Every structure is written in C-alpha cells, then in structure tokens.
C-alpha cells in the first residue's frame, strides 16, 4: 500500500497543546515540510518567540533558542552571524512581531539577515487571553477593545507583509492563509519558496500566515475558519509582495 500522507521528519510524534481548531499546528507542519524538503533539519536553529508558539522545541526535532517577547529577529541575527552555515528561522505571533518587536523585525529585515521569518497573524494576542493586537481588524471586539477596534483611537491594522516588501534587505515577502485545503496547498508552496531563499543563500524571507484563534475569537473551529476567509483575507490580501531574483 502506498503511503500518501505522513508526518514530516522534522516534527516530533507528540500531542499538541494547541486549542482545537487552532492553525498553529497546521503551520508547524508547513514549516517542517519545508525544512524536510531542503534537508536542513540537522543544521537548523529555530528561534522561539513568546506566545502560544513558545513551545516550538516540543514539536520540532531541532535545536532551538528561546527569545524574549518580540526579540526573536535580534536573537536570530546573533545566531546567524555566529553560525552563518546554519539554517535559522523565527516563528512569531502578531503581538510578538508587530507590536513589541516592531523595531527588531524591521531592522533585521532591513539589514537583510539571511534568515526566514514565519509570522502568524491571528488578529489577537492568543496566549494572554485575546487582547487587541496591531492586526486586530477595525470593529473587532477583543478583551481590550470591548467596543470594537476604533480606527480613530487605536489606529489601523498593520499589513506586515506589504511593509516588509518595502525594505531593501528583504528578498521575499508573502502572505498566505491556511483556512482551506486550497489555501494550505498554496501556503505550502510559498513556505517552501521562502525557505528556499535562505537554503540558497538569497537573503531575508518573510511569510505571513493568516491563522485562526477559535478560543479567543469565541467561535467554534468551523466558524473561526470561515472568518479567516470572510473577514481577514479582504483586508489582508494573499499574495507574494516581493520576490527578488538573486
């Protein structure tokens, strides 16, 4: 019998702690798949951020350094400069990357650090209980925007993939979603491409993944999934915003 679907080698065979319907697990798979494709598991150093994904090392069978909240791109810079032959990626939530860590991501990207950044945008702070994030949609209610995000007071949701594409040091920037099988397949392609940029020494690559947080959105997994397509994608368009041919 032919096996058509199996666990990527870079992923451990363990149960996850993520909530039912959470997309972090799917995104982990995509990252592991890309790692496997380039055969870099054995030379990868992952940088874990603060948020629901902090337990990276519990799922990926790779070496990992844990970074303070928002600082993963700076930690990854130190790692990559010390070990230029290793494969280095960060995995960060939207609170982590687009709020407290804005300076670190912009400058690591602008320096063109030869790393890959996986940016999980679920429009909220997951781990701390669903507070407003820089990516929270206008009108979206969260535990700290109980009347809905007010553009005049809270500003507009930040479109990071587009912002990254503006920076000279960025070689690749894209946004994908994992709310449907079609989008997962597209995301897999993009993730592979982004990892390929580093594997082939082409420079800084950035993948924003639109993701759900059923728990904090107060939705069941199916409804949460649907929200990604209905509310998030219209504001956060999918696509490749920069692709430098090296």
């Amino acid at each position, binding site marked *: 019998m032919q096996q058509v679907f199996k666990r990527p080698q870079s992923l451990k065979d363990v149960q996850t702690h993520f909530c039912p319907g959470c997309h972090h697990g799917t995104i982990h798979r995509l990252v592991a798949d890309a790692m496997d494709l380039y055969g870099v*598991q*054995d*030379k*990868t*150093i992952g*940088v*874990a951020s603060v948020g629901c994904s*902090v337990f990276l*090392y519990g799922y990926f*069978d*790779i*070496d*990992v*350094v*844990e*970074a*303070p909240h928002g*600082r993963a791109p*700076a*930690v*990854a*810079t*130190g*790692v*990559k*400069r*010390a*070990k230029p032959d*290793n*494969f280095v990626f960060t995995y960060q939530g939207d609170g982590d990357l687009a709020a407290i860590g804005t*300076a*670190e991501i*912009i*400058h690591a990207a602008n*320096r063109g650090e030869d790393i890959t950044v996986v940016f999980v945008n679920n429009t909220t702070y997951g781990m701390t209980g669903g507070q407003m994030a820089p990516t929270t949609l206008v009108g979206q209610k969260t535990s700290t925007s109980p009347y809905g995000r007010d553009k005049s007071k809270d500003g507009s949701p930040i479109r990071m993939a587009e912002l990254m594409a503006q920076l000279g040091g960025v070689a690749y920037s894209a946004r994908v979603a994992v709310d449907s099988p079609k989008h997962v397949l597209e995301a897999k392609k993009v993730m592979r491409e982004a990892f390929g940029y580093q594997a082939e020494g082409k420079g800084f690559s950035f993948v924003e993944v639109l993701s759900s947080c059923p728990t904090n959105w107060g939705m069941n997994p199916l409804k949460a999934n649907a929200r990604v397509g209905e509310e998030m994608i219209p504001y956060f368009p999918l696509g490749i915003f920069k692709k430098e041919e090296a």
Partner: protein
Amino acid sequence: MSKRLFVKGNEAAAMGAVEAGCRYYFGYPITPQSDIPEYLSRELPKLNGEFIQAESEIGAINMLLGASACGVRAMTSSSSPGISLKQEGISYMAGAELPGVIINISRSGPGLGGIDASQSDYFQSVKGGGHGGYHIPVLAPNSVQEMYDLTMHAFDLADLYRTPVMLLGDSVIGQMKEALVPNARPVRELPEKGWAVRGKSGAEQRVVKSLFLGDGELEAHNWRLHAKYQVMKEKECISEEYETADARLIVTGFGSVARIAHTAVAMAREEGMKVGLFRPVTLFPFPEKALAEAAGRAGKVLVVELNTGQMVEDVRLSVGAAAQVSFYGRPPGAGSLPSPEELLEVIRKQYDDTAR
C-alpha cells in the same frame, strides 16, 4: 618583553576582549563608551569577526543572547540608560545560563542625567537589575590596565559559570589614557560548551531556554542558580588592600573613586594616621569576608561613593557589628569628583573620632 601602549580605558577593554577571543560585538552608540564599538568596528572585520550596530540596546543584548547560545565569545557595551534597556535580555541570559560580557561605562542619572562619572548604577548592576532574582558577576576596574585584564577575566568567568558578566566602569575609567601592558590572556580550564545550539547534526536536540513550566522545575532551577552564586562567593571574590594591616580606619570605595581615596589614604599616612584602603574589585560576589576581617581589626569603616549611598549597604551587611560604618557620597554634577584633599578632610574627621 611586553610592549607598553598609551591608550584609553575604553580601548583597553576592547583590546582585552579581542585578546580573550571575542569575535562578535553588538552595540548601540552612547557616551561615554562609544570608543568600544568604534574600536571593534575597525578591528573585528580584520579578524573574521562580526560587528553589528544594532537598532537599539534591546536589539544588541538579544543579538548577544543569540550568538552566545551558539557557544561563541561575544560582547556588548553601553552606558546607564542603555543598560536599563539591556536588563530584559540580561535576565533572560541569566535564566538560560548563557555566557556573555556586558560593559557598562556608566554615567549619571536617573533619566537622561549627564555624562559625568557616577557610581549610581551599583544597585542596578549588583542586585540583578532585571526581573526574576538573579546575580551576575560584576567587576569594577580602576585603571586602564584593569579595563584590559578584567575584560579577559570576565570572558573566563562567563564561560566557567555560564553567566552574563558585567564590567562596571565610569567615564573617568573609560575616557582616561594611561599606560597599558597588553598581557597574554590567563589560561583557565574551562568547561566544554555541550549545551550550545549547533544544528542537531543527527544528535540529541539542544534547547536554550528560560521557561520552566514543569512541576517544581522552576524552583529547582532557581535553587541551582542560587548554589552557583554561592560557589562564586567562595571562589571568585577579588579585592585589593593598601596599608590595612595596622589601620584603625578603613576607607573603602570601588573604581575611579577608589583611586582618589588611595591618594587621600597615602596623604593621611604621611600625617601619621593609621588609615588603610580596601577596594572591592568584584562587586558581585562582594568580598565580604576580606572586608569584614580588615574592618574588624580597624573598628571603623568609611565608604566613599559617587552616589548617595549604595555599596555602603553591602559594606554594612559584610561587617555587621564588627565595625562602625560611615558614608561620604558625591552624586554626580558638574565637577563633582571629590579631590584627595576633600577626602583627606573626611578621613581626618572620622579618624579623630576614633581617637576619642
């Protein structure tokens, strides 16, 4: 024969770092320490090393965290407000037991303060300025030579104990020029860095982290760190004594002010007063025992600091009831360094009291 150079304290520290094998530096400009990044931006590329001017002190300390996690010798430097920003990273490095050297050529505060010599970062440096309850070794040089020697020593301590180490100087020590004999670095047996991330290479996964959520895990981790600090207290105290054997008054202070106090003590001796100087070189671990001994013999201690009184607390804890402790402080302000004559006056007063 070693050559003699005439260099600034800051340059000496940078040279000491290079001699110690440091090839990675991450920093952000701030007076009065910018000679360090300037020197290393020039020299490290020649040695196949990396210099990065980070976007902030926060960026710099976290780059240091990342590089140190890979097992290489790496460093950052800054001055007071920048060190405040680095405290988050220092706490994480202490928690993850990562080596690394941080130079603080401190200036005055609080807030933007000024750039004159000050010792008001004593608490912040020695009491573990970041969150979570930890210590890091803190070394306080008082000369250009010591900026060089103690920077090398800092790298060894960092690797030996898997801890960040701070070199605490101030603008006097950093900016003054004097003779330096660049000694070869001391040879100390250091453990293998079997914990450093390297890409699994088919072996066991390695994780560098400070998150311990398992039942009792964090408590055990904290006790282990505590035990490490006790070992440092046993083995790593450094202090310098001058004329303390028969002294009836011990003057104590660290770094730049200790040099002025040294002159004042010599002047007091010329006047026939039995006064001695005790200079802590390590501020953590604080040389409690050595100080308690000298103070116990003398019965009286005068603490001199460029602040309103910080190290004096550790002096009191060290000597307990064995000696009477007084304090003379000059927090920073334009031209606020005490002169030897000024300190001699304070010594006279304290010494006369003793005679009574």
